[in-house]
């Protein structure tokens, strides 16, 4: 990871900028969106990615310590994934996310129950907090 940062610095022009943009959260809200508004289903545990987040943070701190990059600014924001059905959400979950997000059966049951109240227009969404940091080359 630190070696990749040295490589990034090598290919950057003077005054070049490294951007670190990645999901950064320990809980992700799962919600049901319908014509009646937004309803919370659950907060999902995404803490399995925490070690990776911390390792990445540590790599950037190391890069700052050796003077190759320096943090200019950082911000956090949310982006979302939407599904038109509980079944679609589960297919995506099984295919891509089961190693990163804990989705208990009771949460799926609650999502199904809420969805059945608004089958025509409801969508499920999960909101992921992201971190964006700019590091000018030093």
């Amino acid at each position, binding site marked *: 990871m630190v070696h990749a940062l040295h490589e*990034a610095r090598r290919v950057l022009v003077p005054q070049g900028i490294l951007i670190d*943009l990645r999901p950064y959260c320990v809980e992700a809200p799962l919600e049901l969106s319908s014509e009646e508004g937004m309803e919370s289903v659950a907060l999902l545990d995404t803490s399995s990615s925490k070690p990776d987040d911390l390792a990445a943070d540590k790599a950037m701190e190391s890069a700052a310590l050796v003077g190759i990059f320096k943090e200019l600014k950082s911000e956090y924001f949310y982006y979302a994934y939407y599904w038109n059905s509980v079944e679609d959400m589960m297919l995506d979950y099984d295919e891509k996310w089961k190693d990163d997000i804990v989705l208990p059966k009771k949460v799926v049951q609650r999502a199904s129950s809420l969805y059945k109240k608004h089958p025509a227009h409801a969508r499920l969404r999960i909101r992921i907090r992201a971190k*964006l940091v700019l590091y000018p080359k030093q």
Partner: protein
Amino acid sequence: MKALNDPEGAELSHLVAACSLPGRHILEIGCGNGKLTWQYAGLPRQVVGIDPDASVLRQATVNRQASSSNVSFLRAVGEALPFPPRVFDVVLFASSF
């Protein structure tokens, strides 16, 4: 695609607001299937996306748009970039740490 991914364009809008991309040469490390790449590809002068996974790079290429001659994808890893020194204005690690 079962999920509608970031239909509000939050990632793109925050990226564009944080850093001027027009006219720049961008290297995206860990571009994956090019989902984010293709969202901002119309802005910079040049975009190179790299990823170690050949299968996702194929998806990125399949998603190519007609007016995208400024975008290329390479199979490579961040620890050994196949480029000479001082050629990119921006290096973007997008979910690739």
